[in-house]
C-alpha cells in the first residue's frame, strides 16, 4: 500500500478527529487490507501518510492482536477458546484444525501452502454459537464441530482470494 493510497483513504475522515494521531489505527487497518499483513514498507507508508515516525507507528501496530506485522495465510481462521466455547468443544475444534493444517497445538500457525493461518482467539462475542470460528474479521460462525471446522477450511482453501483483507 502506498502513502498516497492511505492518504486518500484518510482524507475524508480527517475532520472527525481533533487530533490527527487518531488516524494512525485506521491507517494501519486500511494498509493491512492490501496484503493481509503489514510489511516494513507498509508501516513506512502509514508513517508518511499520518506524519508520525515509523517507530511510533510500529509501537501502535504491535499493541493490537489483529494488526499483523509478520506474514500470515491468505485466510486467517480464529478459533475461540474462551470459557463458553471451551465448554462446547472449542479445544477439540482447535486441535482438529491444527492437525489438519499441520501446525502445532500450542501456537497454531500457517499451513505449508500459505493458504490458511489457524490462530487461537479470545471470546469473539458469539458465545451463543459456541464453539465458534471467525474467518478474518468479517464472518463469525458456529456452532462448529471438528468435522464442520475441517469442511470450512476446505471451502476457504478452494475459494478465490478476497479483494480486501479486513482482519
Amino acid at each position, binding site marked *: 500500500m502506498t502513502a498516497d493510497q492511505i492518504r486518500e483513504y484518510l482524507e475524508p*475522515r480527517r475532520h472527525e478527529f481533533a487530533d490527527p*494521531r*487518531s488516524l494512525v489505527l485506521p491507517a494501519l487497518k486500511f494498509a493491512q487490507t492490501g496484503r493481509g499483513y503489514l510489511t516494513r514498507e507498509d508501516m513506512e507508508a502509514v508513517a508518511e501518510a499520518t506524519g508520525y515516525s515509523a517507530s511510533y507507528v510500529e509501537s*501502535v501496530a504491535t499493541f493490537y492482536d489483529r494488526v499483523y506485522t509478520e506474514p500470515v495465510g491468505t485466510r486467517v481462521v480464529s478459533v475461540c477458546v*474462551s470459557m463458553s466455547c471451551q465448554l462446547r468443544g472449542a479445544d477439540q475444534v482447535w486441535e482438529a484444525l491444527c492437525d489438519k493444517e499441520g501446525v502445532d497445538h500450542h501456537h497454531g500457525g500457517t499451513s505449508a501452502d500459505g493458504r490458511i493461518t489457524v490462530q487461537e482467539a479470545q471470546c469473539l462475542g458469539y458465545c*451463543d454459537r459456541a464453539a465458534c470460528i471467525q474467518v478474518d474479521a468479517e464472518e463469525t460462525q458456529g*456452532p462448529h464441530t471438528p468435522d464442520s471446522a475441517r469442511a470450512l477450511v476446505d471451502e476457504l482453501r478452494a475459494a478465490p482470494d478476497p479483494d480486501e483483507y479486513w482482519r
Partner: protein
Amino acid sequence: MPLLNSVYRQREAGKPLVTLDDYRAAGGYQALPKVLAEMDPDDLQYEFMRSGLRGRGGAGFPMGKKASFLPKDSQRPKYVVCNADESEPGTFKDREIMEFNPFQLLEGITLAGYAIGAVRGYIYIRGEYEHQARVLDRAVAEARAAGLLGTGLFKSTFDFDITVYRGAGAYICGEETALLESLEGKRGQPRLKPPFPAVAGLYHSPTLINNVETLAALPPIVEKGADWYAGLGTEKSPGTKIFCVSGHVMRPGNYEIVLGETTLRELIFVHAGGLRPGRRVKAVWVGGSSVPPLGEQHLDTPLDYEALAAAGTMLGSGGCIVMDDSGSVVRTTLRLVTFYRHESCGKCSPCREGTSWMEKLLQRIVDGQAGPDDLEMLKALFGRISGRTLCPLAEGAVGPVRTALELFPDDWADALENGVPVPEPMLPVSS
C-alpha cells in the same frame, strides 16, 4: 417471570430493524424531536437521573449521575463515547443491538450528546465486529442523509455527528481510559485516574463514556418517561437488562428481563431451556468471566445488582456462563486466568506477572504436577495483585479464582491429588 422485551425494539418487534424506515415504523426517532423541541439539556439529564438507569458495561454506575459530572463551564468541546468493545467472555448483547437495531443506538447517543452539549459521538467497536461496524456505518450514512445527524438537527441549533471507530483486538480497550488512549491513536493502556473522563477524557476534553446497552435504553426512557422506567424492577436496580446465557444450556441466547423479578434459576431453566437431561448446575459466572462464580445453592437469587452482590458476585455485563456437572471448575478457572494473562496490557507489573504466575500454578494443578504448597502460593498471589494496579483487569482475574477456591474445595483437593482430565464437551444441540 416472563421476558419483557420493551426497551430494545428489535426484541419487541421480533425482527431486525436495520433500515431507518424499519426503525421508524417500530416507533423510533420520536424521542429526539420531542426533546429538541421541548427540553433543555439540564432537564434531559435530570430525566436520565430520575430513570435510575445504571451503566450496563460492568460497573453499574448511574448513567444520569455520570452525565452530571461533566463540567458545565468548560470551554473545550465535549464528547460522548459509546463503548462497543464488548470482549468480556460470555457477553454478546451489544452485538445484537448493533447488528439488529443500530438506529436505536444512534438515537440514544444523540440524546446523550444533547444532554451534555457534545459536538460529536464516537462508537468504539471491537475490530472483530467488522460486520456490525459495517451495519453501523450504513446506519450513520442513512441518518446523516435524513438529517438525523449533522447540523441543526430538527431545525434546532444542535449540531451533532457520530464516528464509528474500529479497534483491532485488545480486551483492555474496553476499559474506559484504555479505550480513550486507543481512540487517540496510541497503545491502548489504561490511564491513572483521576482525572476521570468526565473532566479530562478524549483529547483532554470532558467526555461521557457509556456502554451500548446503556445508551440504547435512552430513547424509550424519553418516550415513555423516566417514571415508567424507574417503575420497572427494584428501587436500586430499575429497568430491564439483557442477560447473555451461554455454556451448558439448551437455548443459549440473549434474554431481556426486568431486574429483580427473575431468578437465576428461571433464567437458566425457563428462558435458556435448562440443561441436558440428568445434569445439574455446577457453577455459573453470572456477569461475565470477571465475576466470582455462584453454585447450585445460589440459583434462587433474583437477578439484580444488590441481590447478586449479597450472594457474593456481581451483575457485571450480564454475560451468564453456565457450567453443568460434566465440567471442571478447576479447568474452567484455568481457562479464565489464561484469558486475563493474554489480555493484560503489561503496563502494571503485578497484573502482567501475577496473571502469568496464576496461570502457571493452575496449569500445574490441572496437569497433576502440583506440589502441596502450590495452592498456598496461589492464594498468596491474590494480595500481591489486588489493589496494586491502575485498572480492574487484574481484579477480574483474582476474584473468580478466590471464590472458586472457597465454593468448591473438594474439586481443588481432588485436582491436587489427581489432576483434571479433559471433560467431555457439550456438542452442538441439533436445531
